[in-house]
């Protein structure tokens, strides 16, 4: 057989029916469900008197709308209806759902791997673009729209067209204080937000192998910000070690068989990639975005770029527009930009390692006077419990942070956690689009350690200088 990429292998393994025109009916092993993109899918099923094809392939959790302050009641009636609709739909169909107050509840992309519900070699979908996170496990995982949620529920399959293969190689080692988040922001800065469109990106190289599973998830999470529907990282010992013993993971003899099968989940040595990008990890500095697209990113040591220096007119206009929205002047040093709020959370950076790295920076310090709100929103109830066991919650609280219940929270502000117009936020999330964190709000994306450092200083600082 010809040499194949990891993506080729995952694709081949899941073809139910080849349409012969580049598209195929592809089998889906796992569907994760949340409250926002599923109601219309369940309604569609009902309207057509259809039932889910396979209940055990599905797992549901509320995350986008849940309050993070107190879990007693949800004030917003529209959100309440959406949450209870998920409840009703899961009860009616028999799909397993973690309740809001279950410690296993959390952001859908955090709980999948955490529970061992997402495994290497699987095809994994969810009505959410950051499903790509799960690619860190060597699984083909990608976001889908609501029609596809319905299709996957009804048939356990999707009609898909195979994407092209892209490889992003990160050679060498990251410097001190430089994290997976900085790496993926630097990659997006390099290839652009459409750089991976139409491709599945496999991240390889020494610096990727060196990342923890959490770090790998951060990188794959933002594959979608690089335009790719799916990101992938090959299975290695770290992957297997991470999965072993998790609630949904196989056990005993089945575990041994699974581990053996997973050994093959890597690209063959001479597999063909349609596009290859090579980056040197040692060149990557801590990153901060300055604009309204994740590709508008510079090292913290840099300054806000000048559109006048840009030759492409449409890029120039985009930059000007972003600067107006962000209220920034070209030439301003990133370190001179003051912030109002700090958000540590989201499916990009809310796992235990992220919380530890932020806690390390703020331990014994306090947030600056001009920071009106700094919050930590753990990715799941289990992450929260673990952090509390390590005493990290107290470090944050002592530093003036709010320690919240798990959920998407101010990553997109569907609940009451939002930026007010004009407020500037250091955020560990993944999107700095206009209005993303609240209408008129200004988002700067960065790593958890950098966000913590900014909280203490009141403006951006280079975490390496602390």
């Amino acid at each position: 057989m010809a040499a194949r990429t990891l993506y080729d292998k995952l694709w081949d393994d899941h073809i139910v029916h080849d349409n012969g025109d580049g598209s195929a009916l592809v089998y889906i092993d796992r569907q994760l469900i949340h409250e926002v993109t599923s109601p219309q899918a369940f309604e569609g099923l009902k309207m057509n008197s259809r039932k889910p094809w396979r209940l055990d392939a599905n797992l549901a959790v509320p995350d986008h709308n849940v309050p993070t302050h107190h879990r007693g009641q949800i004030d917003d009636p529209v959100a309440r209806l959406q949450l209870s609709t998920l409840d009703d739909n899961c009860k009616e169909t028999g799909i397993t759902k973690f309740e809001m107050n279950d410690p296993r509840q959390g952001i859908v992309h955090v709980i999948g791997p955490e529970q061992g519900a997402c495994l290497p070699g699987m095809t994994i979908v969810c009505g959410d673009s950051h499903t790509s996170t799960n690619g860190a496990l060597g699984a083909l995982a990608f976001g889908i729209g609501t029609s596809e949620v319905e299709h996957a529920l009804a048939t356990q399959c999707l009609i898909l067209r195979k994407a092209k293969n892209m490889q992003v190689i990160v050679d060498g080692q990251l410097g001190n204080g430089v994290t997976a988040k900085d790496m993926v922001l630097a990659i997006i800065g390099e290839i652009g937000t459409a750089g991976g469109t139409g491709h599945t990106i496999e991240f390889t190289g020494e610096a990727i192998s060196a990342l923890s599973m959490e770090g790998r998830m951060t990188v794959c999470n933002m594959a979608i910000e690089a335009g790719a529907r799916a990101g992938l990282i090959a299975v290695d010992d770290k992957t297997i070690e991470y999965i072993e013993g998790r609630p949904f993971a196989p056990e005993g003899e089945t575990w041994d068989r699974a581990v053996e099968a997973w050994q093959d989940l890597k690209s063959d040595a001479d597999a063909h990639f349609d596009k290859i990008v090579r980056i040197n990890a040692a060149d990557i500095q801590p990153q901060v975005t300055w604009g309204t697209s994740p590709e508008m990113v510079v090292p913290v040591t840099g300054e806000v770029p000048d559109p006048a220096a840009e030759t492409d007119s449409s890029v120039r206009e985009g930059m000007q527009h972003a600067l107006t929205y962000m209220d920034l002047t070209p030439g301003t040093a990133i370190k001179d930009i003051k912030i109002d709020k700090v958000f540590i959370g989201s499916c990009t950076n809310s796992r235990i390692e992220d919380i530890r790295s932020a806690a390390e920076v703020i331990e014994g310090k306090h947030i600056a006077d001009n920071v009106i709100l700094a919050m930590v929103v753990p990715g799941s109830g289990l992450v929260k419990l673990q952090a509390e066991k390590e005493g990290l919650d107290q470090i944050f609280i002592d530093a003036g942070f709010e320690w919240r219940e798990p959920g998407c929270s101010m990553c997109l502000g569907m609940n009451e956690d939002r930026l007010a117009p004009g407020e500037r936020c250091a955020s560990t999330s993944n999107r700095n689009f206009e209005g993303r964190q609240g209408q008129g709000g200004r988002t700067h994306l960065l790593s958890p350690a950098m966000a913590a450092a900014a909280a203490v200083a009141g403006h951006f600082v280079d975490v390496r200088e602390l």
Partner: protein
Amino acid sequence: MKVFKSFTGIVVPLDRSNVDTDAIIPKQYLKSIKRSGFGPNLFDEWRYLDAGEPGDDHAKRRENPDFILNQPRYREAQILLGRENFGCGSSREHAVWSFLDYGISVVIAPSFADIFYSNSFKNGLLSITLDGDVIDKLFEETLATDNYQLTIDLENLSVSTPDGDNYLFELENGLQERLLQGMDDIALTLSLSDEIRDYEAKRKQQAPWLFAE
């Protein structure tokens, strides 16, 4: 799903690249459990000067006169002309539902984000990709001509201008047919149920851990 064979409509040019789905339909409206009713909130934050919440009477909100969709000559537009990487960001199908609910049934751009592109065809919103040069020309013509209209022919896969220029576009195999016949994807897949079961049986042997007992 409403589908047309051929259709002529007014064009509105939205001269921005990387238009994201957060801009197309902001998050507060995603709480709806319906597929309809998103039209008044298409491009909400660009369209209105004041902030909006679900349940507001949007007719009473202050419109932003500078936003292109609000300009009188584009009020009745049914075709949106866009720039690169249109529809990037989240997977929310609400973005597609918003266009349709508003009355826009075709988006023409040099490139689309993958999920938006695939969502659009599931709902009968036609996403058409044309070369950057052609798009530039269409932008110029739209801006220069009042009531500028394009005709989209789904049978011949062409876009034609008032001057008689004709541009061919491509759709993936099967998509054109499915659109023209208004076929239900799920019914089509379910007709292959036996193959799905065969696959599952084989897979259970190879990888039993993928199936709970």
